[in-house]
């Protein structure tokens, strides 16, 4: 009854939009955002300037005259050692490494996860624990034995060898991802399929696989960015003709010979970062889910 006689707006007093706390809050966020955005901005403007303009200083200034020549040069003319065919070679190498690595690592890890959650056998948990602990071992302790293994099977320096290495080192986190997902699938579903006489592969392909599509997307995002950004394995397990893009980028930018062309370097850097950036901006929430899955390993 009191409500009827009350005049004026009800509910809590709305906060002032420009309260001191809000100005502080947004001010901080905007300043911090600038720190995060600065390198991207500087890379873009530098890559669009000509060399004379860069020598004038002012890295933050927008280009007075926009030129796309550095991009063309980075893609098709930049030199690494004796090869002067630009980053395009590294790009195609990376694509050739990426596609089979992503397919193979996810195929193996999803079957692993499925076997581990639905077809437990004696010792399966032990192997899984070792696999997860393996994710924490520094790569440096396993690098040389893998060199020997790859030499034995004749894949050292080959793109196939690098695909194998990515499959091996992607296995712990991906297996964990799929195992946790399949463990959350109601067991009745699996039992019903068993009663109907479906076997290991039939249940996997007809029931589990279609259900797990979202988790496959997460795994793909995780693997595409991870493998594309790899540098260490690329340096060790390939030779100059098969260098992935990151390794070639480093060789172009940090080569000591010749005049430094900063605009070409920045265009090359942006080209290398483009694939994961596109994935990131296109995938949005799924990317966050992917890295959150990667974060809770162990």
């Amino acid at each position: 009854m009191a409500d009827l006689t009350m005049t004026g707006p009800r509910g809590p007093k709305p906060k002032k939009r420009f309260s001191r706390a809000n100005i502080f809050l947004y001010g901080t966020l905007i300043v911090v955002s600038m720190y995060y955005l600065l390198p991207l901005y500087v890379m873009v403007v530098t890559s669009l300037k000509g060399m004379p303009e860069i020598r004038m200083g002012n890295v933050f200034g927008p280009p007075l005259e926009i030129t796309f020549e550095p991009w063309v040069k980075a893609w098709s003319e930049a030199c690494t050692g004796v090869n002067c065919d630009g980053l395009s070679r590294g790009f195609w190498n990376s694509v050739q490494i990426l596609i089979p690595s992503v397919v193979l690592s996810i195929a193996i890890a999803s079957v692993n996860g499925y076997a581990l959650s639905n077809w437990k056998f004696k010792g399966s948990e032990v192997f899984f624990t070792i696999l997860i602990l393996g994710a924490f071992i520094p790569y440096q302790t396993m690098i040389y034995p893998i060199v020997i293994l790859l030499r034995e099977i004749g894949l050292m320096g080959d793109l196939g060898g690098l695909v194998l290495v990515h499959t091996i080192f992607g296995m712990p986190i991906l297996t964990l991802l799929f195992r946790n997902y399949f463990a959350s699938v109601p067991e009745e579903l699996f039992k019903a399929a068993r009663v109907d006489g479906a076997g290991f592969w039939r249940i996997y392909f007809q029931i589990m696989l279609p259900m797990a599509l979202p988790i496959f997307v997460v795994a793909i995002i995780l693997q595409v960015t991870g493998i594309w950004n790899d540098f260490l394995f690329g340096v060790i397990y390939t030779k100059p003709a098969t260098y992935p893009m990151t390794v070639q980028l480093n060789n172009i930018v940090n080569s000591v010979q010749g005049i430094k062309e900063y605009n070409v370097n920045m265009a090359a850097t942006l080209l290398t970062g483009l694939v994961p950036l596109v994935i990131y901006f296109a995938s949005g929430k799924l990317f966050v889910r992917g890295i959150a899955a990667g974060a809770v390993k162990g």
Partner: protein
Amino acid sequence: MSVVEQTGGQRAAKARKPMRLFRNPMAKIASIPMILTAMVVFVGGTLWTVVHSFTDSRLLPRLNWVGLDQYERLWDTPRWLISISNLALYGVCSLVLTLTIGFVLAALLDRKIRFESAFRTIFLYPFALSFVVTGIAWQWILNPDFGLQSLVQGWGWESFAFDPLNDPDTVMFGLLIAGIWQGSGLIMCIMLAGLRGIDEDIWKAARVDGIGTVKTYIRIIIPMMRPVFITALVLIASGIIKLYDLVVAQTNGGPGISSEVPAKYVIEYMFRAQNLGQGFAASTMMLVSVIIILIPWAYLEFGGKKNG
């Protein structure tokens, strides 16, 4: 029904017992890649390296025992000592700063602000980029002749000096700026997920008791988020030990050897200096440091669960 099922299962198990190895064979065949990876590469490879760290392998690995010689030489090498102290400095700073920045940003984003997803996207995008890209971008910004320093000098402040990458004393901080730029978004994301998991009623209770916002965070929220902090800690720590690409791209260990790190030491000794034994000894030391970090964590994580 469950009883029938159980007895049926037991009977089947009894009947098949002699053939245990061949029970659900497909699952085992499908797990062969996993078993090989775990046993051959992870266990076998690691043991192989540890064993060979006690030999005098140079260009090729061989089993000629020299005891702890490689380790003695390792701890006598200035380059290794610099690598270790660099990593310690970088590690402590990166741990403290990443956790602080990650938490503060997450707390700011959790204040029911507008454009939250835009800010989150901005803070996280560097994480999608490789360390090589990160290192090269920051190398350019910190370039003394054309970058930040020359810009400020151009504004009229002639004596302004900010050239961390060419000064042996500050080069690790130059790397730190880039490393934090790349990795803090991830920690922010984890912290934000942790903050979102905290019951709204706790905030209400704190407000009723008249506890200020900052005080609530420090006294109530942070202690509640202990598991999240531990996850973040393990994540940052395992990333720090792996620090390699960023150094190669941004400074290549320079000026001189003043920004060398252990991971780089290992690679250089294995593949450039052709001194495999040294590389194995150094990588074994890396493994030992990981184990030292991991054991208390595993104890907290898994030992605690059993008690609680």
